[in-house]
């Protein structure tokens, strides 16, 4: 049996976990502390990937990230390579798909923070950006960890969106969930079973960690 899809899924999940705070933290910050017009609109846009069927989101991403789409054309201009059907492509798609799942717990932990800590930081001379890194993030480390690990778990089993923009290229975009699906379709039930049997305990362990983190948060 070929273990490449499982390793690829792990790699995708790891990168998604590592990179998601860069996208999620500023959005969570804006939604938690921002006072601006159109906040509810931003809120809805961020939550959109959660309600859209993955195939619909995936088709949209295929259009935008394809060489005839804005993002895809810019990427091709910059790197010479194609964004869809690449590891970077499925990673970006996963990040977008996972955004609401990461923003919600982060935002909740930001909102739980005592607002006077931020006022205190401002009085002591901290700019909003400095306060974000020196005060907010260190005090929301539990929320940050929970959101990242949730994204890890979610990416491990991610299927619909990757199916739409990945192109199932072995070693590049053929992640475990797709390999399992293909194995079932081809009636290679043994392969499908072995891969699933590996995926389940890993996912279970990750969920246990999330529960631990959530329980520990004050």
């Amino acid at each position, binding site marked *: 049996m070929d273990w490449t899809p499982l390793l690829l899924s792990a790699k995708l999940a790891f990168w998604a976990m590592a990179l998601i705070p860069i996208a999620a933290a500023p959005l969570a910050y804006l939604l938690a502390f921002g006072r601006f017009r159109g906040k509810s609109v931003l809120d809805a846009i961020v939550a959109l990937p959660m309600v859209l069927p993955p195939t619909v989101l995936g088709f949209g991403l295929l259009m935008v990230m394809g060489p005839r789409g804005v993002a895809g054309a810019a990427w091709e201009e910059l790197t010479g390579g194609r964004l869809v059907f690449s590891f970077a492509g499925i990673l970006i798609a996963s990040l977008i798909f996972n955004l609401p799942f990461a923003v919600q717990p982060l935002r909740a932990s930001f909102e739980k923070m*005592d607002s*006077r*800590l931020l*006022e*205190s*930081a*401002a*009085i*002591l*001379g*901290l*700019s909003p950006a400095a306060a974000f890194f020196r*005060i907010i993030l*260190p*005090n929301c*480390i539990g929320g940050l960890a929970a959101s990242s690990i949730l994204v890890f778990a979610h990416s491990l089993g991610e299927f619909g969106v990757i199916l739409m923009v990945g192109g199932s290229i072995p070693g590049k975009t053929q992640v475990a969930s797709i390999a399992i699906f293909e194995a079932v379709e081809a009636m290679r039930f043994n392969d499908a079973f072995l891969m699933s049997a590996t995926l389940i305990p890993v996912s279970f362990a990750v969920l246990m960690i999330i529960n631990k983190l959530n329980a520990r948060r004050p």
Partner: protein
Amino acid sequence: MLCADMTKRLKHFDLELRFSCAPGAITAVVGPSGAGKTTMIRLLAGLERPDSGTIAFGGQIWAEPESGVFVPARKRGLSLVFQDYTLFPHLNIRKNVAFAATDMDRVDTLMDMFGIRHLASSKPAAISGGERQRAAFCQALARDPVLLLLDEPFSALDVATRRNLRANLKELKGELNIPVLHVTHDLEEAVFLGDTIMAVENGQAAPDWLHRQCMLPQQYPTGLSRHAPVRSS
């Protein structure tokens, strides 16, 4: 010198205050709760903007809506001690005190003076309320502020700690040589600490409020009690 002539529309009344505070002196601000004292402190700190008027400090305008000038809190160089400490939970006491300080010797001196040197490596959650409030004072003073704002800093403390901190503050007053604004509902404290006493009621200066309080025999059977009333009737 702090000069303020400001208005702010509040829910039940308009805050309209006009006063000045000299360096080296403590201005005790008294008045019933809900009188707008905390809003006044927040306006001076730059956490809120006045609707009109001018807040100026040492010849610099901090806030003046008419001319669009507003210096944000972080650029005012002042310190504020809240009623319940606002230490940063993830930092130990020494790091909290040194948070905005430039002179580390001053940090140590202050921690000695307030008796919290031995707590340097403790986290705020691990020490008592009194100790936390001492640390908050050290944090406020360690940055060498141009103005010190105190919003009922002693009200959550036990009597002994309160007395100690009051003594510390009085001792420091001359050395600091900055204006100190001290909001309190404890009249005895106001009299003990304040060089000037400013009474505020419904957002306005109420010079006779203190006088009226003193005239309430049931609440002050022996003159100024240590347990001053929280509310006026």
